[in-house]
């Protein structure tokens, strides 16, 4: 069974071994000690309020406002902020550009999340399997892209997609085949998805691999003696045990997918198929900072946030009781 001590061990920490016998103190705690946790929490709470809670409320507020222009909107005071009710929301939800970007990101997520997590799980199981070789090399190599920021990896792959640079085009050329451009309307989604998979597979592999290593070997030694195959053990013993880790990687991947921004933004100068509203987040950026319409941009961002919340909370509910209550029920 995996307890928190195993985690400390897995992290290379000193598992607590010395237990000092002290008489239990009486229940009355000094006032200073009662204030201590709040003092420790103060910096986190202040920063949380200033940079998370307040911005969310401000965003909500802005999303119900709009700018009213009187006259030609030129002189000072000709633009005033007024309440706009739900209009920003209804127009955002009816905006074909927004709907198209949502559809695109939905498709993108359907490609990225299963491919990335499927390969991450496969690689993790293979790293954990005794019969694989080149494990150390592969683990480091597959994890390496996590050290490369999304902008840089988009830039590298972006060049590799260019017909003048790409080795794939050269191979196809030699064979006399005609290859469609990776930046064509049909394929650009996969081109961006590949960058996300490349950047994320190693991290998720390490998460799942860490969970796999925590499984005590007695759990599957018996099955091994009974002649169960390695694949059978992986499917029937290992995967069910690391399921909570897989669910967590799923939630985090989904959140990241809905927010895709850096990759397509970086690729834009190399391709004319990526519009300024290619993903919902790019549309928020365009509306807010290119068009200066903070109000509808806020409404759009709130819609994305709510969608993220609803989707990820559903999955988190599944693991919450097990994942987050650990030191309370020891």
């Amino acid at each position, binding site marked *: 069974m995996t307890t*928190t001590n195993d985690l400390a061990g*897995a992290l290379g920490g000193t598992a607590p071994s010395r237990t000092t016998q*002290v008489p239990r103190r009486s229940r009355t705690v000094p006032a200073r000690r009662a204030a201590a946790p709040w003092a420790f929490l103060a910096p986190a709470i202040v*920063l*949380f309020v200033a940079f998370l809670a307040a911005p969310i409320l401000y965003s909500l507020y802005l999303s119900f406002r709009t700018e009213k222009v009187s006259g030609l909107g030129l002189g000072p005071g000709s633009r005033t902020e007024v309440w706009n009710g739900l209009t920003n929301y209804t127009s955002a939800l009816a905006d074909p550009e927004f709907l198209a970007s949502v559809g695109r990101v939905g498709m993108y997520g359907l490609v990225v999340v299963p491919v990335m997590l499927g390969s991450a799980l496969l690689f993790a199981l293979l790293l954990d399997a005794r019969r694989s070789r080149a494990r150390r090399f592969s683990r480091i190599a597959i994890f390496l892209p996590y050290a490369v920021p999304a902008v840089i990896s988009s830039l590298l792959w972006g060049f590799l997609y260019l017909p003048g640079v790409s080795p794939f085009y050269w191979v196809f050329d030699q064979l006399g085949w005609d290859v469609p451009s990776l930046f064509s309307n049909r394929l650009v989604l996969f081109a961006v998805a590949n960058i996300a998979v490349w950047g994320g597979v190693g991290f998720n592999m390490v998460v799942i691999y860490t969970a796999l290593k925590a499984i005590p070997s007695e*759990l599957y030694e018996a099955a091994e003696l009974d002649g169960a195959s390695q694949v059978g053990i992986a499917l029937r013993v290992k995967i069910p045990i690391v399921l909570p880790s897989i669910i967590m990687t799923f939630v985090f991947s989904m959140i990241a997918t809905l*927010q895709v921004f850096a990759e397509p933004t970086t690729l834009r100068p190399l391709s004319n198929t990526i519009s300024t509203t290619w993903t919902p987040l790019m549309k928020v950026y365009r509306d807010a900072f290119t068009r200066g319409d903070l109000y509808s941009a806020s409404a759009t961002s709130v819609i994305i946030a709510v969608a993220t919340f609803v989707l990820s909370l559903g999955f988190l509910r599944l693991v919450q009781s*097990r994942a*987050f209550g650990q030191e309370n029920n020891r």
Partner: protein
Amino acid sequence: MSVRASTRPSIIATAILVLGALYCLLPVAWVVVASTKSAGELFSTLTFLPSTHLLDNIAELVAYRDGLFWRWMANTALYAGVGGALSAIVSAMAGYALAKYQFAGKAAVFNVLLAGVLVPGVVLAIPQYLMLAQVELTNTYWAVLLPSIISPYGIYLARIYAAAAVPDEVVEAARTDGAGELRTFAQVAVPMMLPGLVTVFLFQFVAIWNNFMLPYIMLGDDRLFPITVGLSGLLNQGASQPAMYTLVITGALLSVIPLVALFLLLQRFWQVDLAAGAVKA
């Protein structure tokens, strides 16, 4: 079936792993080769055929606008290093308080902080910009640094580390010896939590290094840019001046080296248990 049979090397398993590794190394290998090519060779010679212009390219990059590239690298180190360190300290304090004290409102505080994990950066970007603009902090180092310190996930991890690595008995003993709450934390708990705190630091370091949207929105002055925003801008110019492409590629190579080195050196800290404590047989 004997145990020996089950440890026989499997060609298929090894081949899949090695293929995965090669896929992940492909762009890295390419950028190493491409940075040795001159602007003309980039689009004309074979992809993986190295050339001899690496030093020229580096010299050109260093000379670009009086060493702006190094400034971007230094800025990135500042944002990610200082931001990550502050984040680890704030997370350690909060995580310790949540793991080692019983107090009214503890569950509520933890749940609210944890909900922050799910908040997408997108709802924060615009209001953070407007709020920092009101106190005239946009387009300064603070605009990127301050919002990067709070890390709900870091607090969640720190709570787990504190619960796992700091036994209640040790905290009690320190108190019995007359140590104050702050001293108990700083001199007893922090050393025990240290390996976990390094992981929190690394997580936040990479998150800040990776965060493109925040500096992209907050900064206008390119002398404040981190490397990611700087290179992205150079790539934009490349559309009209292809000579910029060699600068971008050489810059990408040089900027990746320190992070890759950091990764290889600190490998043992990269053991991530997202659902820590969840596996209870």
